[in-house]
């Protein structure tokens, strides 16, 4: 199935109901990848409830990516390679077949033994035992989906990664960490004052964020394991926009203590503060390049908000975006070849990407209220804040713009999402 983005992707609309108790009510998928790989996922043998739960996570993950076509396995249920009759699957058009077994171990952990078979070549592509505690069954499913994704697309999967976002409901704000599909919510901070700009440490162990709990914007760094936190920056005015360097040894933050919003570097414990922009304009939303040498940031030094780039050690900044409208919230792609940002024109906010080499900008979405885009660690998906049915929601778009999904949380507005690193 080929759907041209420019014609407006409306073709395929799937509603995947999340059946387990969790935060996400529903996920809508719009569009499909150019080449969908037909794959059959046979529910594992063993405890039926557990097998079914794992099966659901695997099929939901693969479907959400837009890169797979799920072949109906009804009527056939092989669980070992010896039980597989390849012609049956060739007839159904499957190119790959996932089979396996699941069982509780003596120590109480759940272990799934999984194999992915090449139906055409009649060989095993990958076989692995994946185990987790009983309350982490979804993690088993995500891991298996990652293995299938990796083997069949050649790219690393991101189903086992996590995301962070802010849920706003009236005057209640909650900073939330969840699985990449929105399940498994963990509340990091809840307050009646706003919370914004969560930022993952490169190892996924800490979140930096902005909280207004003391009456103005202050930057905190909090451990996701112990929940202990430190004040990273609390100067007069606003302290905001934390961004980690790739080695995790420093953060860029934006302070107004010396006048307008300017970018500073600081160590994760709050020491070693050093100012690196001197524009007198609003310089904000710094984002480190993967090699840690450059920063992309938003500035209105040229009259309107645009994206700029500068060396971290401080030198002249180079303007990156031109043309009509204004641009915000830049983030480097994991391969360093492009950056994603929010483009604002008279039609509203769009998710846009720009190639560093050609300077070519392209819009990945149809426009609306689409803000704060961030790449998945494999660079294949972009998470952003959007709006549907009058509510703030989480949304993703594939980096080629072909596949979109809307994630509806149970209540309130989802804002300020950011994709976490590989586990």
């Amino acid at each position, binding site marked *: 199935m080929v759907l041209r983005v420019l014609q407006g992707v409306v073709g395929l609309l799937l509603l995947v109901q999340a059946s387990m108790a969790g935060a996400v009510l529903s996920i809508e998928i719009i569009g499909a990848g150019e080449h969908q790989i037909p794959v059959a996922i046979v529910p594992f043998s063993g405890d039926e409830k557990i097998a079914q739960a794992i099966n659901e996570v695997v099929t939901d993950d693969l479907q959400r990516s837009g890169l797979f076509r799920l072949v109906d396995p009804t009527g056939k249920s092989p669980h070992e390679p010896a039980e597989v009759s390849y012609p049956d699957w060739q007839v159904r058009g499957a190119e790959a077949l996932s089979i396996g077994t699941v069982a509780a171990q003596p120590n109480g952990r759940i272990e799934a033994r999984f194999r992915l078979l090449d139906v055409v070549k009649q060989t095993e592509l990958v076989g692995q035992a994946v185990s987790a505690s009983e309350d982490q069954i979804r993690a088993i499913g995500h891991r298996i989906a990652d293995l299938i994704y990796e083997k069949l697309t050649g790219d690393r999967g991101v189903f086992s990664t996590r995301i962070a976002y802010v849920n706003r409901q009236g005057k209640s704000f909650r900073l939330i960490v969840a699985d990449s599909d929105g399940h498994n919510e963990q509340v990091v901070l809840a307050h009646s004052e706003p919370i914004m*700009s969560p930022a993952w440490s490169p190892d996924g162990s800490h979140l930096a964020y902005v909280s207004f709990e003391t009456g103005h*914007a202050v930057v905190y760094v909090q451990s996701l394991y112990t929940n202990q936190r430190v004040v990273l920056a609390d100067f007069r*005015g606003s302290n*905001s926009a934390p961004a980690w360097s790739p080695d995790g040894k420093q953060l860029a933050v*934006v302070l*107004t203590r010396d006048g307008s919003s300017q970018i500073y570097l600081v160590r994760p414990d709050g020491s070693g503060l050093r100012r690196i922009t001197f524009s007198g304009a609003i310089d*904000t939303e710094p984002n480190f390049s993967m090699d840690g040498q450059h920063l992309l940031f938003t500035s209105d030094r040229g009259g309107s908000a645009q994206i700029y780039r500068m060396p971290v050690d401080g030198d002249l900044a180079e303007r990156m975006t031109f043309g009509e409208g204004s641009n915000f919230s830049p983030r480097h792609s994991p391969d360093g070849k492009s950056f994603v940002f929010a483009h604002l024109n008279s039609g509203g906010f769009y998710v846009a990407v720009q190639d560093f080499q050609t300077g070519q900008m392209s819009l990945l979405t149809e426009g609306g*209220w689409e803000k704060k885009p961030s790449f998945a660690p494999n660079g294949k998906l972009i998470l952003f804040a959007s709006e549907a049915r009058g509510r703030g929601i989480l949304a993703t778009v594939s980096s080629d713009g072909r596949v979109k999904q809307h994630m509806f949380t149970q209540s309130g507005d989802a804002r*300020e999402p950011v994709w976490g690193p590989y586990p």
Partner: protein
Amino acid sequence: MKKLIISIVLVNLLAACASEPKKEEAAPAPAPKAEAPKVAPAQAAVDPLNDPASILAKRSTYYPFDVAVVQDEDKPVVQAHAKYLSEHANRKVRLEGNCDERGSNEYNLGLGQRRADGVNKMLALGGARADQLESVSYGEEKPRCTDHNEACWKQNRRTDLNYAK
């Protein structure tokens, strides 16, 4: 049920928005008048901050899109507050900058701070002391109105002068 709760929250929010200006108009309750002679009459009568007819009853400045300069029509308001603060050294005011949603949250935090700082500077020039003034920004995080249109946005592009009780 969920919808109901959301509706109630919305109604409350709307009510809060709508009733704000009215409150100021309706402020002169009859009760203080009756009690006025008993309590220190001079002070109660003198504080013009509580006079709904005074220009000091205006506690917000408004801005065009992506602009942080105090507009001509708001200058008399800010100047009146500056004079009041210079004459009432014990009063403190928090300047809270806000923005509409057309910008990133972080950019708007910077813009709101710039709006608050602009009012701060004008108050200082008009005689207020630095220790009476604090400027903060809420960016687009505390909108008065949440529709995606100019009627709403123009209410959200403002600096509030919030006096400490």
